[in-house]
C-alpha cells in the first residue's frame, strides 16, 4: 500500500522528467535546425559549380568544400582519443581529406534514444542530410511520405565496383529490402549469415568417457546421437557435479536470428524441418508461420519425450539465462547450443572455471542428410539521404571510402596513420560517419581462410586482410603451442574460429547446407496490436507441451487459436506486402 504510493510518485516524477527531457530534445532540435540551414546555404553557394562536377567518379573530391549534416548513433564509450569527437575525428577528417566534405552532426544519441531522435526528426520534417535508421518500418514511413532521395542513379553512377560486388554477393537479398518500385531508396547495412545453430559438446568429457561422436566426420550428428551423448553425460557425470543435467534450454526455445539462438533448440527444429518464429512461403506462394507447422509439432514432441525421460532439464521453463550459464560453468551440463562466436563471450566462462575444458562443435543432421538452415535478414540498418539534398552521391562516395577503400587498402598505415591507429586501438566503429557494416556475404569465410592460412604458415601474418584476422592468427598460434594455457582469450579465439567457423567452412565446402529463405522481416499493422499477445500464446503453449502439462495434440488447438486471434489477418497482410 505504502509502497504503492511511493511507486506511483516515482512513476509520476519520471513522466514529468520525461516531459522535461522531451522539451530538452526539442531544444537540441532547434540547434540542429540552425546547423542544417547553414549547411543548406553552403550547398547553395557551392551548388552552381557542383552541378558540373558530378561526373567525377566514385572517389572524386568536391572542388569546393561542402558540408553534410548527419544523424549519429553513438555508444557510451567509443574509445576516442582525447580531443576527438564523433563530429571531428580521424574518420571524418579522412572524409574531408578525400572528398572535401565536412561532417556536421545534426544530432547524436545512444541506442534507443537515437531511434527517438529519428522519430522526432521525421515528425518535425527536419531530417539531417544523411542519417542511419534502424528499421525497415521507419524506411517504409520515410518512403511513403516522400522524405528521402531516390538513390538509384547515384548508386549506379558512383558506387565503386567493389561496393557493387558486396551487394551482389547477397544475390539482391540486401538491396531489395531498400528497393521500392525498382527504386533504391536507401543503402542497406548488410548482415552476413551466421548459421547454423551449432551444438557445443565438452570434448574433454567425451575423451574421458571414451565416447566417439560423428564417426563419419561430416560435422553432423543426428538427433539420436545427441540424445545418446546427453544420456551418457547424465549417467557418468564426467563433471563430478553430483547433479548432472542432460540438456538445458531457454524457455523461449528458438530465435529467428542465429545470433540470438544461444541456449535455443533452433538446431533441433531445423534438423526436423521446422523453422520456428520465421515467415516462410509455400510452393503455391501462400505465407505461413514457421512455429505452427507439423514439423515444429514434431520438434515439441521430441523435446516433450526428452523431458519425460529426464534428458531435458527437469526445471526447463523456470531456468533463466544465468541459471543455464551456471549449469555449464559448474560442470553440471556439457552440451549447449549457439552460434559460432559463443566461445568468445560465453563458453570462455567455462574455461575460466575449468582449466581442462575444451569443446567440439557439430550441427544436427536432418533426415535429408543435410544441415537445414535459414538465411538471416540480409539487411541491418539503412543509410538514407534527405529529399532535396544537393549531393545525394555523397552517401555512396562515403560508403566507397569505408567499405571498399578502407577494407582493401594495404597502405593504410602510410597513407592515413591516424586511421590505422584508430583501428589498432579498437576505436569503436560507430565513430565512422555511418554506423552500419557493409561486408561481402562471404566475409566470414574469407576472413577465416586468411586465419587458417596464417595459422598453417601458408601466408605471413601481415598478409591477412584485416587487422582482426592478424590478431586472431596470433591468438590461435599461441593456443596451439600450449593448449593448457591460462589465457582464456587465446582459448576463445581458437574455439570460435578453428571450431565454430571451421564447421561452417567445412559444411559449405562439402555442400552440406540446405538453405531456406524467410520472406518477411517487418511489422504489419495487426502485428503492432496483436503480436505480443500471440507471442505469449505461443510461448506458454510450447512450454506446457514440452513439460507435459498439456498433451502434444493441444498443438492443433493452439494453431487454431493463433489464427483466430489475429494470426490469419497478419498472414494475409504479409502476403499483400510481399506480392
Amino acid at each position, binding site marked *: *500500500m*505504502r*509502497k*504503492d504510493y511511493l*511507486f506511483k*510518485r516515482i512513476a*509520476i*516524477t519520471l*513522466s*514529468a522528467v520525461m*516531459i522535461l527531457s*522531451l522539451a530538452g530534445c526539442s531544444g537540441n532540435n532547434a540547434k540542429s535546425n540552425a546547423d542544417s540551414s547553414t549547411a543548406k546555404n553552403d550547398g547553395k553557394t557551392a551548388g552552381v559549380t557542383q552541378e558540373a562536377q558530378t561526373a567525377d567518379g566514385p572517389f572524386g573530391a568536391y572542388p569546393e568544400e561542402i558540408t553534410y549534416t548527419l544523424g549519429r548513433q553513438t555508444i557510451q564509450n567509443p574509445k576516442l582519443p582525447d580531443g576527438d569527437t564523433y563530429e571531428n575525428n580521424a574518420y571524418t577528417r579522412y572524409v574531408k581529406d578525400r572528398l572535401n566534405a565536412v561532417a556536421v552532426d545534426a544530432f547524436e544519441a545512444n541506442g534507443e534514444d537515437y531511434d*527517438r531522435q529519428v*522519430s*522526432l526528426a*521525421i*515528425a*518535425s520534417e527536419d531530417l539531417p542530410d544523411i542519417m542511419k535508421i534502424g528499421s525497415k518500418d521507419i524506411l517504409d514511413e520515410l518512403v511513403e511520405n516522400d522524405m528521402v532521395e531516390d538513390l538509384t542513379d547515384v548508386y549506379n553512377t558512383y558506387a565503386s565496383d567493389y561496393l557493387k560486388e558486396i551487394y551482389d554477393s547477397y544475390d539482391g537479398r540486401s538491396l531489395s529490402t531498400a528497393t521500392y518500385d525498382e527504386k533504391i531508396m536507401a543503402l542497406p547495412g548488410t548482415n552476413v549469415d551466421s548459421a547454423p545453430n551449432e551444438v557445443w559438446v565438452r570434448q574433454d568429457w567425451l575423451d574421458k568417457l571414451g565416447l566417439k561422436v560423428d564417426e563419419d566426420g561430416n560435422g553432423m550428428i543426428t538427433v539420436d546421437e545427441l540424445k545418446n551423448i546427453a544420456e551418457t553425460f547424465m549417467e557418468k557425470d564426467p563433471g563430478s557435479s553430483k*547433479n548432472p543435467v542432460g540438456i538445458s534450454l531457454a*524457455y523461449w526455445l528458438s530465435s529467428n536470428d542465429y545470433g540470438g539462438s544461444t541456449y535455443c533448440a533452433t538446431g533441433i527444429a531445423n534438423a526436423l524441418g521446422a523453422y520456428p518464429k520465421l515467415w516462410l512461403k509455400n510452393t503455391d506462394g501462400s505465407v505461413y508461420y514457421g512455429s505452427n507447422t507439423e514439423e515444429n509439432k514434431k520438434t515439441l514432441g521430441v523435446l516433450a519425450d526428452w523431458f519425460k525421460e529426464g534428458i531435458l532439464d*527437469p*526445471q526447463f*521453463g*523456470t531456468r*533463466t539465462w544465468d541459471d543455464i550459464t551456471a549449469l555449464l560453468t559448474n560442470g553440471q551440463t556439457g552440451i549447449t547450443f549457439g552460434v559460432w562466436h559463443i566461445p568468445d563471450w560465453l563458453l570462455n566462462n567455462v574455461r575460466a572455471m575449468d582449466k581442462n575444458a575444451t569443446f567440439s562443435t557439430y550441427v544436427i543432421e536432418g533426415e535429408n542428410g543435410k544441415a537445414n538452415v535459414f538465411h538471416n535478414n540480409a539487411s541491418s540498418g539503412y543509410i538514407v539521404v534527405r529529399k532535396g539534398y544537393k549531393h545525394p552521391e555523397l552517401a555512396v562516395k562515403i560508403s566507397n571510402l569505408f567499405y571498399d577503400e578502407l577494407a582493401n587498402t594495404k597502405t593504410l598505415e602510410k597513407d592515413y596513420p591516424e586511421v590505422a591507429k584508430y583501428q589498432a586501438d579498437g576505436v569503436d566503429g560507430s565513430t565512422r560517419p555511418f554506423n552500419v557494416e557493409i561486408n561481402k556475404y562471404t566475409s566470414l569465410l574469407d576472413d577465416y581462410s586468411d586465419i587458417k592460412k596464417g595459422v598453417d604458415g601458408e601466408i605471413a601474418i601481415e598478409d591477412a586482410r584485416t587487422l582482426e584476422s592478424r590478431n586472431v592468427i596470433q591468438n590461435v598460434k599461441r593456443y596451439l603451442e600450449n593448449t593448457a594455457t591460462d589465457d582464456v582469450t587465446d582459448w576463445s579465439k581458437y574455439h570460435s574460429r578453428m571450431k565454430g567457423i571451421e564447421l561452417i567452412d567445412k559444411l559449405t565446402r562439402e555442400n552440406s547446407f540446405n538453405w531456406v529463405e524467410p520472406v518477411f522481416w517487418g511489422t504489419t499493422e495487426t502485428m*503492432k*496490436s496483436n*503480436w*505480443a*499477445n500471440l*507471442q*505469449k*500464446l505461443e*510461448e*506458454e503453449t510450447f*512450454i*506446457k507441451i514440452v*513439460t507435459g502439462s498439456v498433451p502434444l495434440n493441444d498443438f492443433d488447438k493452439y494453431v487454431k*487459436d493463433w489464427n483466430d*486471434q489475429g494470426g490469419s489477418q497478419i498472414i494475409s497482410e504479409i502476403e499483400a506486402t510481399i506480392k
Partner: protein
Amino acid sequence: MNKRNHTPRRKFRSKLTYHIMMMPGMVFLLIFSYIPMAGIIMAFQNYIPAKGLLHSKFVGLKHFKYMLTLPDITQVVVNTVTIALGKILLGTIMAIAFAILLNEIRIKVLKKWIQTIVYLPHFLSWVVLAAVIVNMFNLDGSVNLIITSLGLEKINFLGSNKWFQPLLVTTDVWKEFGYNSIVYLAAITSIDPGLHEAAAIDGAAWRKRIWHITLPGMLPIILLMAAMSLTSILSAGFDQIYNLYTPMVYQSGDVLDTYVYRIGLIGRQYSFATAVGLLKSFIGMVLMLSANGFSKKFTDRKIF
C-alpha cells in the same frame, strides 16, 4: 466564535506563516502530480511520441474496448484480484497479530531487536529477494531438500500453477508484515492504559483485554488501512511477480501490470498502457469512496 479575531482576512493573516510553509509542498504537488495528469489524454489517443500530445490522433474509447477483447483479460484480472486480496487479507492479519504480540513484550532491548529484524526485508529490493527465493524454492533448493528428506515428492514451486500464487502471497507477507505493523503499534500505544488497568482489576484475562480493548481501539486505523489498500486491489505487486515468473506460470501469475508491461513494451503501445493505468486508478478510487461510505454507514466514522 470570537468575531473580533476571526474575520476571514485576519484569519488568513494570522495563518500566513503556515500558508507560506505549505507552499513548496503544494507547488511540488502541482508540478509532479497534477500537471502530468494531462498525460491522461494519451489514453484516448493513438499516441505517437514524435507527434506529441497535441497532434496525436484522437480515438475515443478504442483502447478500453480493445482491452476487453483481449483473450486473456479475464484470467489476468482474476489473477490480479486473487493475488492482491490474498496479500491484503493475510498481510493485514499478520501485521495486526504481530503488533499485538510485540506490544506484550516487556523487555525493551528484545523488542527493539525483533522490530529491526522484521523490518529489514522491507528495505530489500525484489530483484535481490527474488534470487534468494528462487534459490530456496527451485528443485535443488533447500525447501525441496526438506521435502525429500520427509520422503515426499519434489515440488517445482516456481513452475507450478498450483503453488505459484501461494508462494507470491506468503513471500510478500513475509517481506512486508513487519513494516506494516508500525502503524498498528502506534494505534495500540494511543489506547489509554487506564482501560487496561481497569479491566485487569475487574479480572479480565489477557485474551479478553485484547478482544475487548485493544482491537476496538485499533478499529479506526484498521478500517483506514483496509480502505486505503482497496485502491491497490488491481496492483498485485509488479516488481515481485516480474522477477519471479516465467511463461510456465503465466496462467496463475500473470497480472494486469505484467501483462500491460509486456504488451506495452513489445508493441510500444503507450496509449494502451495509459488506458489500463487510468482504468485501474478509476476503479481504485470508486472502491475507496464506497469503503468510506460503508464505514460511515456502519461504524458512523468517516475515514477521511
